[in-house]
């Protein structure tokens, strides 16, 4: 079931986030040629594929950092195709970029304050996130630029979670982490989902990511190539061979 053709991406009607026929690029360079991705409530969905496939570009297009040349994006039923980036938090969707995802000149606490700027009881929310990331509480007065890679990634995630979004977009949460920290990162993703936030993540550590994910999409050359349940993808020889760097 995992080896579907581009033409037949399954459409899920109960999705909290739904990107359909997304086309975008940079200047004259088209990168995405009609990508479909759905995320349902309580799901972790992983997007993977070769370097340069357009995974980060898809995230940027969903988050309105790139113009949608064609296609649409809805979050909990609202069409966000015309919504400005800085209003998206209000629609219940947050985004952690692949790089430069914390404010280096602000302390850990201030990074969270920024994330919680529109949150009614941001102190309480901050406490909840410190329960999830105790390390951040210890570093609350430290400037973000002095954090280790793993701590920075936690802070980036915590900042995005401050508004308690319905969906979190996260681009390579395990990038640059030491092997023993990678599982910890996915552990966090799982706990985020368990706390009620659906997750759309881009990942290169495909096997580890699929173990916590419910479903996956393979993107290649700006198009959907495969999709399916995480277990089925882990079992699929073709997906393993083509996209997981192991036979």
């Amino acid at each position, binding site marked *: 079931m995992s080896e579907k053709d581009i033409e037949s991406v399954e459409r899920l009607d109960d999705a909290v986030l739904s990107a359909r026929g997304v086309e975008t690029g940079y200047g004259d360079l088209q990168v995405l040629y009609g990508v479909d991705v759905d995320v349902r409530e309580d799901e972790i969905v992983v997007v993977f594929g070769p370097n340069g496939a357009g995974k980060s570009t898809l995230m940027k297009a969903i988050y309105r950092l790139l113009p949608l040349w064609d296609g649409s994006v809805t979050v909990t039923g609202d069409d966000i195709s015309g919504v400005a980036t*800085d209003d998206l938090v209000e629609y219940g969707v947050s985004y952690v*970029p692949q790089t430069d*995802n914390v*404010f*280096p*000149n602000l302390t850990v606490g*201030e990074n969270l304050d920024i994330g919680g700027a529109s949150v009614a009881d941001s102190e309480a929310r901050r406490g909840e996130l410190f329960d999830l990331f105790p390390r951040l509480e210890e570093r609350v007065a430290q400037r973000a630029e002095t954090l280790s890679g793993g701590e920075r990634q936690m802070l980036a995630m915590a900042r995005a979670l401050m508004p308690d979004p319905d969906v979190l977009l996260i681009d390579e949460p395990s990038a640059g982490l030491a092997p023993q920290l990678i599982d910890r990162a996915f552990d966090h993703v799982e706990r985020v989902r368990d706390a009620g936030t659906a997750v759309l993540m881009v990942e290169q550590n495909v096997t580890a990511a699929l173990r916590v994910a419910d479903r996956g999409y393979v993107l290649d050359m700006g198009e959907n190539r495969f999709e399916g349940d995480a277990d089925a993808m882990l079992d699929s020889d073709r997906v393993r061979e083509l996209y997981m760097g192991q036979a």
Partner: protein
Amino acid sequence: MADFVGVVQTLLYGLINGSVIAVGAVGLTLSYGVTRFINFAYGELLTLGAYTALLLVGMGLGLPVAAVVAVLVIGVGGVLVARVFYDPLSDRGALPLLITSIGVAFVLRNLVRAAAGTEARQLPVPLMRPWVVAGLRLNPVDAGVMIAAVVAMLSIHLLLQRTMLGKKMRATSGNEQLARVAGIDTDAVVRRTWLISSVAGAVAGVLLAVQFPPFRPTMGWDFLIVVFSATLLGGIGKPYGAMVGALVVGVAMSVGTRYVATEYTMAYAFAILVLVLLFKPEGIAGGEL
């Protein structure tokens, strides 16, 4: 040893000058930190602050009230200038903005000249006998100027560190795109930054006019060199750096004028500017608030 008091006196004057320079430098550096371009029309805000206060005094207001009203008027005026001239160019990069701001400076300077004439003017500052303590002289007016400058600086410090607007300004300065991703209306932050920057400029202008009468329509443009050297010495975009840089420049100008040669006050600031560019070029590369 005989001149010990003289040295301390010179340092004291330097610190008083430095505190005024600091207000000007912080205003310039804040706008740079958030918008990433050097506003060459900034000096004209100082001039406009002084002349607006003069105008209001002429209409019968007392100097303190005139000063406060002038600062508010120029604060709003600075936002309007930014909206009309800078906002439309904001995605074209720093160079077109910089050149535009030089043009804006030219126009504003000549408007002041046309309206107020080129002759030297002064604000009605009462002549007061200096206090003398242990041989050190301190003019009450200078003391007032320094207190006003310190209050301005403290306000900016509290704004940046304690208020949500300040945090948003620093976030926008650190990573503008991430700020938008995090839900910050960065356009609104930029507008407020122009307000704060313009208010600081106008405050510096009024203090300068009070401290060093008389003034002419070129006062702000001339003072820009001093503000630049303080700003770059501290690393442009860094408000606390600008404060320290301003004190160093103020003291250097005071010491140079007293012990080297009287007629080159501006030259000492310019020398610091050149030294920074030679030995600490990262000062102009910019940092975050």
